């Protein structure tokens, strides 16, 4: 009985931690949506949302409420079960990945040894939400959107994988906290700068952000895989997408920008708690995401595939060979000196 009791207690603690992750994430998504629209507007010399609440801050919650009260329209010829499961999968997977993200030294829900592989696995599952949505809608535009998205995500996952390998060779561990701690002397975006660029662009493609938002290119495919969705399922897709974007920003921060570490380890800077640095860096990367959306035109599909397979794949493969050679011959690899 005692074992069961302690197990139940453990379960309740885990659920409490999950809520502790989920609520800030939700606030983060709302702010990210708002920031995205504001930055986009500023680049185009518009005002952006400015009516609801102070500075238009309540625009996103107001939109959300509107979607919640709208009717969920199920297309007559859709595969209804798969149609409704798809957005749930998208949102659940995007939240699940946050379980291993360390926001500060020791502050992480699951400090697992294969953290980076876990994130890679979860983000490779993300394509199923889109594929299922596109197929279950039983309509031409969503289907094309889903096919494009699947091909795109599988292609760019390859180069993301190789970039992660180069970083891992410098760290010697798959644990995300140890990846951050390995950057105590120098953040990896300085020695691995080309890989930082490759990762950033691949992250844009992986999250279907402009200029790689071909799966939902409104000029060709209406709204891609989301065309038939309305009401709450649509909101789930929207939130899943933005949580994924924030996840990719967090991944860039952890892999290249030193996670929760301050820029220099001196007094006034290292007195600030780590999660503040983490949030600041994630915000900076998200700002770059938003700026790219504002001023880069959309790619053509063959250009997208060319960039993924003919430019990034050889480049990242070369980087793997080069990095491992340098680490080996100069005896810099972890555990070699």
């Amino acid at each position: 009985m005692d074992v069961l009791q302690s197990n139940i207690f453990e379960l309740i603690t885990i659920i409490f931690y999950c809520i502790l992750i989920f609520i800030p994430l939700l606030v983060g998504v709302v702010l990210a949506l708002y920031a995205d629209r504001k930055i986009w507007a500023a680049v185009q010399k518009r005002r952006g949302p400015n009516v609801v609440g102070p500075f238009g801050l309540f625009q996103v919650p107001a939109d959300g409420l509107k979607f919640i009260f709208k009717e969920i329209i199920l297309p007559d010829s859709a595969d209804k079960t798969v149609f409704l499961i798809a957005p749930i999968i998208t949102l659940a997977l995007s939240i699940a990945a946050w379980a291993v993200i360390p926001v500060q030294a020791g502050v992480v829900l699951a400090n697992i040894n294969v953290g980076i592989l876990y994130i890679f696995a979860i983000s490779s599952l993300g394509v199923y939400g889109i594929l299922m949505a596109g197929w279950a809608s039983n309509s031409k535009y969503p289907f094309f959107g889903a096919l494009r998205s699947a091909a795109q995500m599988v292609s760019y996952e390859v180069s993301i994988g190789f970039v992660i390998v180069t970083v891992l060779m410098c760290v010697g561990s798959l644990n995300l906290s140890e990846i951050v701690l390995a950057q105590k002397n120098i953040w990896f975006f300085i020695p691995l700068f080309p890989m930082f660029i490759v990762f950033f662009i691949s992250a844009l493609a992986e999250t279907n952000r402009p200029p790689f938002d071909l799966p939902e290119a409104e000029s060709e495919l209406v709204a891609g895989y989301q065309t038939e969705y309305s009401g709450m399922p649509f909101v789930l897709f929207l939130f899943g997408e933005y949580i994924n974007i924030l996840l990719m920003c967090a991944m860039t921060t952890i892999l290249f920008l030193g996670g929760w570490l301050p820029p220099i380890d001196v007094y006034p800077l290292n007195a600030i708690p780590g999660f503040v640095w983490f949030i600041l860096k994630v915000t900076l990367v998200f700002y770059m995401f938003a700026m790219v959306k504002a001023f880069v035109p959309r790619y053509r599909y063959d250009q997208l595939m060319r960039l993924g397979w003919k430019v990034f794949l050889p480049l990242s493969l070369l980087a793997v060979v080069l990095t491992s050679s340098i680490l080996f011959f100069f005896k810099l690899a972890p555990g070699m000196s």
Partner: protein
Amino acid sequence: MSISLLTFYLFSSILLLSSLMVISTKNPVHSVLFLILAFLNAAGIFVILHAEFLAMILIIVYVGAVAVLFLFVVMMLDFKTSLEKDNILQYMPIGLLIGLVFIAELVIVLINTRLDLSNIQILSNPLDNFSDQSNTEAIGSILYTNYVLYFQLSGVILLVAMVGSIVLTLRDREGVKRQIVSEQVDRKGKIELVDVKSGEGVDI
């Protein structure tokens, strides 16, 4: 009953049920989706066995790459017309044969371990100090030392398969215009600067 045992029963029962659904649903897309569910639950069982590296690789390789392409192909098939014609009995003999082979293998393995399920030892145990190593380190230290030849060979086999499939599908079609980016960007010899005299124009 501990939570890990409970989760084991949860994962394994979902695994068995979804594998059953893979072969019993009429819709091919549904069966691929159930196959993915089965993969995920197998990965869950790996995690319970503390083989987290294998679990993640299973998800990344099979669910993230292989099953996506599988689903990709199945979704584009026009399966509605072929549904009624299918005769289950047609594939029965070969299915039974494969099933028998699998059952025979399982029985052989179980007899060799003498059904002592409380103390299953891995048949060949090349690592002595497994407990103080992480999963990834342990696999790497075996794979790149004792089994480096087999590892490289399997890589070569995959490479041959890849090259083979590219050669089989590659064909030259006539009249296809390809974008050559270097040619497009390079304007040397393609632009001419001409001084135009007022009122005379230029010949093109």
